[in-house]
């Protein structure tokens, strides 16, 4: 089945062959994968999808991969959980958690985009993959490159904490610590991507890479029994994930796989200390004002997001909105999810839970409608955020009487 038309400029519509390019040479707009939906209609069915593997690759027909899947065979198809305890706490009827904190293999939704990017890198004949990152993306690129037997170059700012680097280094990439400002790391990477024939997953492979995020949206719909929720709240950094979840819903609708109307409203969640997309939404302007990030939600700390404009448009087009969360609210959000549902998410998840709570409390999201909260990363990767924030546990001598006493003390404290 010939399913791809190559690439297409999102701004001026010019067409390009399917190559590792990402910017329109004419207008510098972003390029996007162009599918032949007419060829897919009737071929991609609920049954054909259900017959696929229990991973994101059950949607392979809707991904820009022509040949065999090269890496990440087990990525995705993470649990969608009915979160009744959280719903009760929030005073809502129907809350779901899409839980990519347990995405295989590197514990964030980035495995979805990287599995596509590294598979494409192999398809295009690259022997080296690369990325600039300070977190989840670095982990995932290094892991998938190892699996695919590709060399990898991971660029990070030199003054990053050792703990963050470890979960990348373990896969044996070439880690390049750049002495300079973050600005300079970015500009350097775009120049390196220009000069070396490497697969920069989020630069020259970006059109393919970003398509992997659609599977997060496909799974939500399939796991809800081929229906769409009323509200989806998405953590935003570069702004790609939120646009791709919405694109996923539109694709399934166009293919006739969703019953009834799709009136899902999309919401952006960002930290107060780095919320340029939510600021656009709140000010109702399509002008993105870059910010200098200052937040504990480091995985979301992109001050000048490439897809900010499209993220804003997604919330506007769907009738959704956006909300900021302060560092305190982020911690509270992490603790709330852990306490109610037994899920330990990272700061990005704290942002999303906190933003959801605010959207409900301010009446933007009605309490009786269905809500999906996107949990996209694991808390065990960034325990630093919680150091010094949790109560000390009970310490006793190894005797029953010591325990009895401690228990009595605890009871009197909480009484």
């Amino acid at each position: 089945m010939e399913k791809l038309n190559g690439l297409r400029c999102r701004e001026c519509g010019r067409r390009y062959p399917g190559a590792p390019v990402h910017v329109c040479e004419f207008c510098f707009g972003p390029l996007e994968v162009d599918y032949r939906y007419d060829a897919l209609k009737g071929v991609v069915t609920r049954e054909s999808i259900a017959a696929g593997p229990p991973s994101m690759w059950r949607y392979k027909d809707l991904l820009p991969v022509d040949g065999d899947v090269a890496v990440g065979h087990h990525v995705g198809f993470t649990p969608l959980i009915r979160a009744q305890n959280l719903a009760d706490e929030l005073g809502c009827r129907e809350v779901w958690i899409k839980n990519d904190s347990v995405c295989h293999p590197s514990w964030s939704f980035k495995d979805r985009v990287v599995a596509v990017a590294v598979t494409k890198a192999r398809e295009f004949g690259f022997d080296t993959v690369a990325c600039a990152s300070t977190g989840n993306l670095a982990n995932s690129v290094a892991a998938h490159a190892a699996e695919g037997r590709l060399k990898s170059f991971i660029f990070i700012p030199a003054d990053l904490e050792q703990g963050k680097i470890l979960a990348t280094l373990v896969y044996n990439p070439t880690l390049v610590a750049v002495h300079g400002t973050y600005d300079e790391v970015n500009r350097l990477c775009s120049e390196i991507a220009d000069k070396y024939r490497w697969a920069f997953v989020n630069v020259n492979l970006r059109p393919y890479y970003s398509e992997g995020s659609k599977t997060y949206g496909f799974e939500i719909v399939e796991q809800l029994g081929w229906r769409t929720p009323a509200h989806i709240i998405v953590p935003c950094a570069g702004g790609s994930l939120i646009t791709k979840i919405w694109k996923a819903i539109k694709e399934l609708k166009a293919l006739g796989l969703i019953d009834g109307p799709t009136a899902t409203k999309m919401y952006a969640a960002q930290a107060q200390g780095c919320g340029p997309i939510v600021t656009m939404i709140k000010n109702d302007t399509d002008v993105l004002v870059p910010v200098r990030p200052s937040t504990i939600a480091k995985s979301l700390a992109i001050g000048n997001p490439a897809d900010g404009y499209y993220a804003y448009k997604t919330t506007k087009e769907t009738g959704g909105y956006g909300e900021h969360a302060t560092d305190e609210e982020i911690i509270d959000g992490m603790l709330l999810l852990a306490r109610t549902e037994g899920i330990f998410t990272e700061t990005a998840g704290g942002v999303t839970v906190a933003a959801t709570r605010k959207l409900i409390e301010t009446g933007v999201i009605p309490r009786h409608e269905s809500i999906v909260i996107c949990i996209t990363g694991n808390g065990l990767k960034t325990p630093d955020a919680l150091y010094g924030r949790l109560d000390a546990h009970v310490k006793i001598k190894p005797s029953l009487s010591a325990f009895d006493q401690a228990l009595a003390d605890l009871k009197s404290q909480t009484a």
Partner: protein
Amino acid sequence: MGTTTRLRLRLTFPTHLVQEPIVYRLVKDFDIVINIRRADVKADHGWMALELDGEPGALERGVKWLKEKGVQVDPIERDVISP
């Protein structure tokens, strides 16, 4: 002109610079050839995606000057990562 290099950048202008002839100064004072590919300039804010051709030293100086003026200079890809 000796060897020239090419840079593809996105400039973001804060309110107080929207009215200034920044691009004109870049061409005239730094001897940089500029090709604007896409732009959106409003009354209080604006951005431009452009290609700059010039000698490497001139480009470096031009970019430094832009930053000193308060223009945000990013690669065309953006997604500027942070600490």
